[in-house]
Protein backbone atom coordinates (compact mmCIF):
# COMPACT_ATOMS: atom_id res chain seq x y z
CA UNK A 1 0.00 0.00 0.00
CA UNK A 2 2.82 2.36 0.93
CA UNK A 3 4.53 1.65 -2.39
CA UNK A 4 1.32 2.42 -4.29
CA UNK A 5 0.89 5.69 -2.43
CA UNK A 6 4.49 6.70 -2.99
CA UNK A 7 4.29 5.83 -6.68
CA UNK A 8 1.15 7.92 -7.01
CA UNK A 9 2.80 10.75 -5.12
CA UNK A 10 5.92 10.62 -7.27
CA UNK A 11 3.81 10.67 -10.41
CA UNK A 12 1.83 13.67 -9.18
CA UNK A 13 4.90 15.50 -8.01
CA UNK A 14 6.73 14.87 -11.24
CA UNK A 15 3.75 16.29 -13.08
CA UNK A 16 4.11 19.50 -11.11
CA UNK A 17 7.87 19.43 -11.38
CA UNK A 18 7.67 19.48 -15.17
CA UNK A 19 6.57 23.11 -14.92
CA UNK A 20 9.78 24.07 -13.12
CA UNK A 21 12.87 25.05 -15.07
CA UNK A 22 15.80 23.54 -13.21
CA UNK A 23 18.57 25.30 -15.07
CA UNK A 24 19.44 28.92 -15.74
CA UNK A 25 21.54 29.58 -18.83
CA UNK A 26 23.01 32.55 -20.63
CA UNK A 27 24.59 32.73 -24.05
CA UNK A 28 27.90 34.44 -24.58
CA UNK A 29 28.50 35.33 -28.21
CA UNK A 30 31.67 36.19 -30.06
CA UNK A 31 34.12 34.85 -27.49
CA UNK A 32 36.39 31.83 -27.50
CA UNK A 33 35.56 29.08 -25.02
CA UNK A 34 38.92 29.27 -23.24
CA UNK A 35 38.62 33.04 -22.90
CA UNK A 36 35.19 32.67 -21.33
CA UNK A 37 36.58 30.07 -18.92
CA UNK A 38 39.37 32.34 -17.80
CA UNK A 39 37.29 35.50 -17.52
CA UNK A 40 34.44 33.76 -15.73
CA UNK A 41 36.79 32.16 -13.23
CA UNK A 42 38.36 35.54 -12.52
CA UNK A 43 34.96 37.21 -12.18
CA UNK A 44 33.70 34.50 -9.81
CA UNK A 45 36.83 34.69 -7.67
CA UNK A 46 36.31 38.44 -7.47
CA UNK A 47 32.94 37.79 -5.84
CA UNK A 48 34.26 35.24 -3.33
CA UNK A 49 32.73 32.45 -5.37
CA UNK A 50 35.84 30.31 -5.19
CA UNK A 51 36.43 27.93 -8.07
CA UNK A 52 37.64 24.85 -6.23
CA UNK A 53 38.09 22.71 -9.31
CA UNK A 54 37.44 22.61 -13.03
CA UNK A 55 36.30 19.38 -14.66
CA UNK A 56 37.03 19.38 -18.37
CA UNK A 57 34.40 16.98 -19.65
CA UNK A 58 35.25 17.61 -23.30
CA UNK A 59 38.40 19.31 -24.52
CA UNK A 60 37.50 18.90 -28.19
CA UNK A 61 34.62 20.73 -29.86
CA UNK A 62 32.00 20.94 -28.57
CA UNK A 63 34.02 21.81 -25.49
CA UNK A 64 32.43 21.39 -22.09
CA UNK A 65 33.75 22.25 -18.66
CA UNK A 66 32.24 22.32 -15.19
CA UNK A 67 33.37 24.72 -12.49
CA UNK A 68 32.93 23.54 -8.91
CA UNK A 69 32.28 26.76 -7.06
CA UNK A 70 31.89 27.41 -3.37
CA UNK A 71 31.45 30.32 -1.03
CA UNK A 72 32.22 29.20 2.49
CA UNK A 73 30.10 31.91 4.08
CA UNK A 74 27.01 30.81 2.17
CA UNK A 75 27.69 27.19 3.11
CA UNK A 76 28.06 28.21 6.75
CA UNK A 77 24.67 29.95 6.68
CA UNK A 78 22.67 27.26 4.88
CA UNK A 79 24.08 23.84 5.67
CA UNK A 80 23.62 23.56 9.46
CA UNK A 81 19.82 23.70 9.04
CA UNK A 82 19.60 22.13 5.60
CA UNK A 83 22.55 19.78 5.27
CA UNK A 84 20.96 18.05 2.27
CA UNK A 85 21.83 21.03 0.11
CA UNK A 86 25.44 19.94 0.24
CA UNK A 87 24.49 17.50 -2.53
CA UNK A 88 24.20 20.41 -4.94
CA UNK A 89 27.46 21.79 -3.69
CA UNK A 90 29.96 22.79 -4.74
CA UNK A 91 27.78 24.75 -7.10
CA UNK A 92 28.18 23.46 -10.66
CA UNK A 93 28.60 26.21 -13.19
CA UNK A 94 28.92 24.60 -16.57
CA UNK A 95 30.12 26.02 -19.87
CA UNK A 96 29.73 24.46 -23.28
CA UNK A 97 29.97 25.37 -26.93
CA UNK A 98 26.73 25.28 -28.86
CA UNK A 99 26.39 24.46 -32.57
CA UNK A 100 26.95 28.07 -33.57
CA UNK A 101 30.17 28.39 -31.60
CA UNK A 102 28.63 30.46 -28.83
CA UNK A 103 29.42 29.64 -25.23
CA UNK A 104 26.53 28.76 -22.98
CA UNK A 105 26.99 29.23 -19.25
CA UNK A 106 24.51 27.57 -16.94
CA UNK A 107 23.82 26.61 -13.35
CA UNK A 108 20.98 25.57 -11.10
CA UNK A 109 17.97 27.87 -11.31
CA UNK A 110 17.94 29.39 -7.86
CA UNK A 111 14.49 31.03 -8.12
CA UNK A 112 13.12 27.55 -8.94
CA UNK A 113 14.89 26.12 -5.91
CA UNK A 114 13.41 28.86 -3.76
CA UNK A 115 9.93 28.20 -5.15
CA UNK A 116 10.17 24.52 -4.25
CA UNK A 117 11.70 24.96 -0.81
CA UNK A 118 10.32 28.33 0.27
CA UNK A 119 8.26 27.04 3.19
CA UNK A 120 11.32 25.26 4.64
CA UNK A 121 13.69 28.22 4.41
CA UNK A 122 14.03 31.07 6.87
CA UNK A 123 14.56 34.66 5.72
CA UNK A 124 18.31 34.45 6.16
CA UNK A 125 18.62 31.36 3.96
CA UNK A 126 16.42 32.88 1.24
CA UNK A 127 18.62 35.98 1.28
CA UNK A 128 21.78 33.88 0.98
CA UNK A 129 20.41 32.04 -2.04
CA UNK A 130 19.37 35.29 -3.70
CA UNK A 131 22.75 36.90 -3.10
CA UNK A 132 24.52 33.83 -4.51
CA UNK A 133 22.32 34.04 -7.61
CA UNK A 134 23.11 37.74 -8.00
CA UNK A 135 26.82 37.06 -7.61
CA UNK A 136 26.87 34.42 -10.34
CA UNK A 137 24.76 36.51 -12.70
CA UNK A 138 27.03 39.50 -12.09
CA UNK A 139 30.08 37.36 -12.84
CA UNK A 140 28.55 36.23 -16.13
CA UNK A 141 27.72 39.82 -16.99
CA UNK A 142 31.29 40.86 -16.27
CA UNK A 143 32.56 38.02 -18.47
CA UNK A 144 30.45 39.35 -21.32
CA UNK A 145 31.96 42.76 -20.80
CA UNK A 146 28.75 44.29 -19.49
CA UNK A 147 29.45 46.28 -16.34
Amino acid at each position, binding site marked *: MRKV*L*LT*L*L*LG*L*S*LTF*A*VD*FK*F*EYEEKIEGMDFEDVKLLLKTALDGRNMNV*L*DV*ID*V*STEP*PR*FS*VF*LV*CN*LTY*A*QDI*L*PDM*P*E*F*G*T*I*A*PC*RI*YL*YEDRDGNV*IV*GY*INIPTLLK*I*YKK*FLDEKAVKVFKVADEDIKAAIKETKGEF
Partner: protein
Amino acid sequence: MRGILFILGGLLIVGALVFFIYKNYANPFKLMFYTQTVQGKSFDKVIEELSDSLNKSGLKLIRVLPLSKALKARGVKDFPNYSMVLACDVEGKRELLLKVPFLSNLIPCSLAVYDNKEGGVSITALKETLFIHQYKSKLSEEDVKLIKDTYSKLKKVIEGVAQ
Protein backbone atom coordinates in the same frame (compact mmCIF):
# COMPACT_ATOMS: atom_id res chain seq x y z
CA MET B 1 -28.08 9.49 -13.02
CA ARG B 2 -26.70 6.72 -10.87
CA GLY B 3 -23.73 6.48 -13.18
CA ILE B 4 -22.98 10.19 -12.89
CA LEU B 5 -23.23 10.05 -9.12
CA PHE B 6 -20.93 7.06 -9.07
CA ILE B 7 -18.35 8.91 -11.19
CA LEU B 8 -18.61 12.04 -9.04
CA GLY B 9 -18.25 9.98 -5.90
CA GLY B 10 -15.19 8.29 -7.34
CA LEU B 11 -13.64 11.61 -8.30
CA LEU B 12 -14.30 12.94 -4.82
CA ILE B 13 -12.56 9.98 -3.24
CA VAL B 14 -9.57 10.28 -5.59
CA GLY B 15 -9.40 14.02 -4.91
CA ALA B 16 -9.44 13.47 -1.17
CA LEU B 17 -6.75 10.82 -1.47
CA VAL B 18 -4.56 13.07 -3.59
CA PHE B 19 -5.04 15.92 -1.11
CA PHE B 20 -4.16 13.62 1.80
CA ILE B 21 -1.02 12.38 0.10
CA TYR B 22 0.02 15.88 -0.93
CA LYS B 23 -0.50 17.29 2.55
CA ASN B 24 1.32 14.51 4.35
CA TYR B 25 3.95 13.23 1.97
CA ALA B 26 4.71 15.96 -0.58
CA ASN B 27 7.93 16.92 1.06
CA PRO B 28 10.44 18.12 -1.56
CA PHE B 29 13.27 16.89 0.66
CA LYS B 30 11.96 13.34 0.36
CA LEU B 31 11.50 13.71 -3.39
CA MET B 32 14.91 15.14 -4.10
CA PHE B 33 17.24 13.58 -1.53
CA TYR B 34 18.20 10.11 -0.40
CA THR B 35 19.62 9.86 3.12
CA GLN B 36 20.97 7.04 5.23
CA THR B 37 22.04 7.34 8.82
CA VAL B 38 25.12 5.61 10.14
CA GLN B 39 25.28 4.65 13.79
CA GLY B 40 28.28 3.56 15.74
CA LYS B 41 30.95 4.91 13.40
CA SER B 42 32.93 8.10 13.71
CA PHE B 43 32.64 10.79 11.06
CA ASP B 44 36.19 10.19 9.83
CA LYS B 45 35.57 6.44 9.64
CA VAL B 46 32.49 7.03 7.49
CA ILE B 47 34.47 9.22 5.11
CA GLU B 48 37.21 6.62 4.91
CA GLU B 49 34.81 3.72 4.24
CA LEU B 50 32.78 5.72 1.76
CA SER B 51 35.87 6.75 -0.21
CA ASP B 52 37.14 3.20 -0.32
CA SER B 53 33.79 1.72 -1.28
CA LEU B 54 33.15 4.26 -4.04
CA ASN B 55 36.41 3.39 -5.76
CA LYS B 56 35.80 -0.36 -5.41
CA SER B 57 32.34 0.04 -6.96
CA GLY B 58 33.62 1.85 -10.03
CA LEU B 59 32.22 5.19 -8.88
CA LYS B 60 35.56 6.88 -9.04
CA LEU B 61 36.22 9.24 -6.15
CA ILE B 62 37.26 12.68 -7.38
CA ARG B 63 37.91 14.41 -4.09
CA VAL B 64 36.70 15.01 -0.55
CA LEU B 65 35.98 18.60 0.43
CA PRO B 66 36.29 18.91 4.23
CA LEU B 67 33.99 21.90 4.62
CA SER B 68 33.84 21.92 8.43
CA LYS B 69 37.64 21.80 8.68
CA ALA B 70 37.90 24.77 6.31
CA LEU B 71 35.38 26.72 8.39
CA LYS B 72 37.12 25.85 11.63
CA ALA B 73 40.39 27.06 10.15
CA ARG B 74 38.62 30.36 9.54
CA GLY B 75 37.69 30.54 13.21
CA VAL B 76 34.10 29.34 12.93
CA LYS B 77 33.24 27.47 16.11
CA ASP B 78 30.55 24.85 16.68
CA PHE B 79 30.07 23.92 13.05
CA PRO B 80 29.21 20.22 12.92
CA ASN B 81 31.47 17.83 11.03
CA TYR B 82 30.62 18.18 7.35
CA SER B 83 32.30 17.03 4.16
CA MET B 84 31.27 16.82 0.53
CA VAL B 85 32.44 13.75 -1.33
CA LEU B 86 32.67 14.12 -5.10
CA ALA B 87 32.54 10.89 -7.06
CA CYS B 88 30.82 9.07 -9.93
CA ASP B 89 33.41 10.02 -12.51
CA VAL B 90 31.96 7.41 -14.86
CA GLU B 91 32.49 6.41 -18.48
CA GLY B 92 29.94 7.92 -20.78
CA LYS B 93 29.53 11.18 -18.89
CA ARG B 94 30.79 13.23 -21.83
CA GLU B 95 28.02 12.09 -24.16
CA LEU B 96 25.39 12.47 -21.44
CA LEU B 97 26.43 15.95 -20.35
CA LEU B 98 26.74 17.25 -23.90
CA LYS B 99 23.06 16.36 -24.33
CA VAL B 100 21.87 17.70 -20.98
CA PRO B 101 24.54 19.92 -19.40
CA PHE B 102 22.45 20.47 -16.28
CA LEU B 103 22.95 16.82 -15.37
CA SER B 104 26.47 17.77 -14.29
CA ASN B 105 24.64 18.17 -10.98
CA LEU B 106 24.04 14.42 -11.02
CA ILE B 107 27.21 13.17 -12.63
CA PRO B 108 29.72 13.64 -11.10
CA CYS B 109 27.77 13.18 -7.88
CA SER B 110 28.13 15.00 -4.58
CA LEU B 111 27.52 13.18 -1.33
CA ALA B 112 26.93 15.23 1.77
CA VAL B 113 28.36 13.56 4.88
CA TYR B 114 27.57 15.25 8.17
CA ASP B 115 26.98 14.87 11.87
CA ASN B 116 23.22 14.84 12.31
CA LYS B 117 21.21 16.19 15.23
CA GLU B 118 20.61 12.71 16.63
CA GLY B 119 24.29 12.09 17.25
CA GLY B 120 24.94 9.86 14.26
CA VAL B 121 26.41 10.52 10.84
CA SER B 122 24.19 10.99 7.81
CA ILE B 123 25.03 10.46 4.17
CA THR B 124 22.81 12.22 1.62
CA ALA B 125 22.75 11.97 -2.17
CA LEU B 126 20.42 13.42 -4.77
CA LYS B 127 17.64 11.22 -6.12
CA GLU B 128 18.02 10.82 -9.83
CA THR B 129 14.35 10.07 -10.63
CA LEU B 130 13.16 13.66 -10.70
CA PHE B 131 15.89 14.70 -13.12
CA ILE B 132 15.43 11.73 -15.43
CA HIS B 133 11.76 12.64 -15.68
CA GLN B 134 12.49 16.30 -16.25
CA TYR B 135 14.87 15.65 -19.13
CA LYS B 136 13.47 12.42 -20.51
CA SER B 137 12.78 13.92 -23.94
CA LYS B 138 16.50 14.60 -24.40
CA LEU B 139 17.81 11.31 -23.00
CA SER B 140 18.30 8.03 -24.83
CA GLU B 141 17.67 4.66 -23.20
CA GLU B 142 21.41 4.28 -22.74
CA ASP B 143 21.62 7.67 -21.00
CA VAL B 144 18.83 6.74 -18.61
CA LYS B 145 20.49 3.39 -17.96
CA LEU B 146 23.80 5.09 -17.21
CA ILE B 147 22.19 7.40 -14.67
CA LYS B 148 20.10 4.66 -13.09
CA ASP B 149 23.01 2.22 -12.89
CA THR B 150 25.28 4.86 -11.39
CA TYR B 151 22.77 5.84 -8.75
CA SER B 152 21.82 2.27 -8.00
CA LYS B 153 25.49 1.52 -7.28
CA LEU B 154 25.74 4.71 -5.27
CA LYS B 155 22.82 3.74 -3.05
CA LYS B 156 24.34 0.31 -2.48
CA VAL B 157 27.62 1.94 -1.46
CA ILE B 158 25.80 4.25 0.96
CA GLU B 159 23.76 1.39 2.40
CA GLY B 160 26.90 -0.70 2.77
CA VAL B 161 28.61 1.99 4.81
CA ALA B 162 25.48 2.64 6.86
CA GLN B 163 25.23 -1.00 7.99
